[in-house]
């Protein structure tokens, strides 16, 4: 690759700035009017920008300046958290959005890349959350280990479904995950050792002796919300997971997953083991969902079966579809719309399931690619082939 022109980086920087600005504006908007205007402007910008070809410009510029843009994106995330440091509620919402994006990344790998359906994403988050709760209260394991263990346990429990999932396809496979989601929730509600419908309490996070649930005080005047520390950790986790998913997508593994999804028979004729790829994608996706669930349990300090219903699985699935199936980047605006909007617009709080269901129907009918449709694979990013 030759030395790219410096000016070509501008669209990427502008996009990151716009994204961070829109996130901040949405989180900090005070009145209902501001929220509605910000949200509508954001969605309109995405749709019009995509149509006018800004998307291509941004895409090219990101592709030819990957190091700088990803560093800028991390920095932008840190700046957003820093600016929100004294806003408890807004930080909590930002953290929730990040966890939904993390679980959405898992679904993207499963459904978007490998084509394995999963209508029980919230149930798998629940497995991670309950594992973390039990491990943290009854063992003295370091909390970072607990979070990783929650991911591993979730992947293991998910592997129970592998045999039926691999033997079936299409609707039959969908039914298996739906049955698992319902089974899991019913199980939690009637199981007294896991707290039944009342749920479990979860202690705060401690890493290397640092307790996250204490407000961060510098002197008597400045005090940061304790969610700042959580948000910092979540940004690191989400950034790592996002980078990993992106790398997988771009590598030969992503190519193999795409091939298996598009035509398993043809893929196997080229020597790809479809079952192995589906197992890998399903387990990895559940691992991410489990980690998201564990972090969710720690963040909210309390978990109950009602947080992991079939409806929540559908909400996660609507995030993935709204963002653009298979495009990890689309998860962020979609999660902002699905998670933050109802919290901010109390008018629609009561109607949120109704509205999102209707929204997903409209998207599937009119714009099946979502807000940010997935692009065709580029074998040499940044080079106009």
């Amino acid at each position, binding site marked *: 690759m030759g030395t790219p022109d410096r000016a070509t980086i501008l669209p990427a920087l502008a996009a990151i700035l716009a994204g961070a600005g829109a996130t901040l504006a949405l989180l900090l908007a005070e009145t209902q009017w501001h929220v509605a205007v910000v949200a509508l402007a954001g969605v309109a910008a995405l749709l019009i920008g995509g149509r006018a070809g800004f998307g291509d410009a941004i895409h090219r510029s990101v592709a030819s300046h990957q190091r700088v843009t990803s560093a800028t994106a991390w920095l932008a995330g840190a700046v957003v958290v820093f600016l929100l440091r004294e806003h408890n509620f807004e930080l909590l919402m930002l953290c929730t959005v990040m966890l939904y994006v993390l679980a959405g990344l898992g679904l993207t790998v499963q459904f978007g890349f490998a084509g394995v359906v999963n209508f029980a994403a919230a149930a798998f988050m629940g497995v991670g959350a309950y594992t973390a709760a039990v491990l943290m209260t009854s063992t003295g394991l370091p909390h970072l280990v607990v979070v990783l263990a929650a991911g591993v346990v979730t992947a293991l429990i998910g592997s129970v479904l592998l045999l*039926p999932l691999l033997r079936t396809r*299409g609707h039959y496979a969908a039914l298996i995950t739906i049955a698992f989601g319902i089974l899991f929730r019913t199980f939690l509600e*009637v199981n007294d050792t896991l707290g039944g419908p009342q749920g479990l309490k979860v202690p705060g996070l401690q890493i290397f002796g640092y307790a996250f649930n204490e407000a961060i005080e510098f002197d008597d005047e400045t005090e940061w919300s304790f969610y700042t520390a959580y948000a910092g950790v979540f940004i690191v986790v989400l950034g790592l997971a996002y980078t990993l998913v992106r790398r997988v997508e771009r590598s030969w593994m992503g190519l193999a997953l795409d091939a298996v999804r598009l035509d398993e028979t043809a893929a196997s004729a080229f020597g790809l083991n479809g079952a192995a790829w589906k197992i890998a994608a399903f387990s990895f996706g559940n691992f991410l969902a489990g980690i998201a669930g564990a972090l969710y349990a720690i963040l909210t300090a309390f978990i109950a079966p009602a947080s992991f219903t079939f409806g929540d699985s559908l909400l996660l699935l609507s995030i993935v579809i709204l963002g653009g199936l298979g495009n990890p980047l689309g998860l962020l605006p979609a999660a902002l719309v699905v998670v933050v909007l109802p919290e901010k617009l109390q008018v629609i709080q009561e109607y949120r399931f109704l509205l999102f269901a209707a929204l997903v129907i409209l998207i599937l*009918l009119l714009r099946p690619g979502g807000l940010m449709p997935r692009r065709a694979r580029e074998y040499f990013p940044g080079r106009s082939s």
Partner: protein
Amino acid sequence: MDPALFAQHLLNGVMLGVIYALVAVGFTLFFGVLDVIKFSHGDVVMLGAFTALATSIAASAAGLSSPVILAAMLLAAIVGMALVGMLMARYLVLPLRNAPTLNVLLVTLMAGTVIREGVRLFYPQGSNPKPFPRLLPTGAFEFGAFTLRHDSIVLLVLGVGAIVFVHLLIVRTRLGLAIRAVAQDPETASAMGIPFRGTVLATFAIGSALAALAGVVNGLYYSEVSFNMGLLLGAIGFSAAVIGGLGNVYGAILGGFVFAALQTIGAVALPFASAYKDVFAFGVVILLMAWKPGGLLAERSAERV
């Protein structure tokens, strides 16, 4: 086990089986003609029950007698849901005919959510369970410890009658012939002059009318309906249709009774608490899928590549 108690559980299981079979037949009919799953089916069941409830309230306010109310609510629910089914087929399912099949599943799942939330938000106090009127004769035959309620008999006759009616409709009539032809091969059927869209709409009307009937039977049997009963009923009906083998009407009926048997066994015959009956039933469904991926009465066909 005490024979009277056994008979009681058996009757209860059969009753459940009839309701599940009514729902499952709808799933399998839709899958037969279009190769799609309409997951909002359970919520159509619920909407049918609420339509019947609203009609019965209006009719009893008008001072009609029980049999007339019953007929009025059945008619309203069946006609109303047949219309809803046709509208969904026309505006949600048919436009997505060439999209990936799971998109249809998603679209109808979301349509189900719209129906469910619509009833919760817009039916007066829709988020609470509603008492369903007892319109059937209340007496019972006593055989020792075993009681056979009169209303159970009526409901069984109604449910079984509907299944037999649909069977005859599919096997004996021109419409049934058209449905079977479209299910087998839509293009050839069109070439033979069978109107594709009309047949699909008719199938959705029949399936949704069965769902309405299932909703009314369910309401009369339990004397209670609630806005979220459709989710579980839909999942059970879907499971039943899949266990039996999608596209096969007899499979769906069989599946309905299998699921009811699993729930009954889970509730009474197993060592753990009866609250685990759904965990048990859905667990067995997952195992059954691993054992017979195409359902118990699977179509014998090789995959087309």
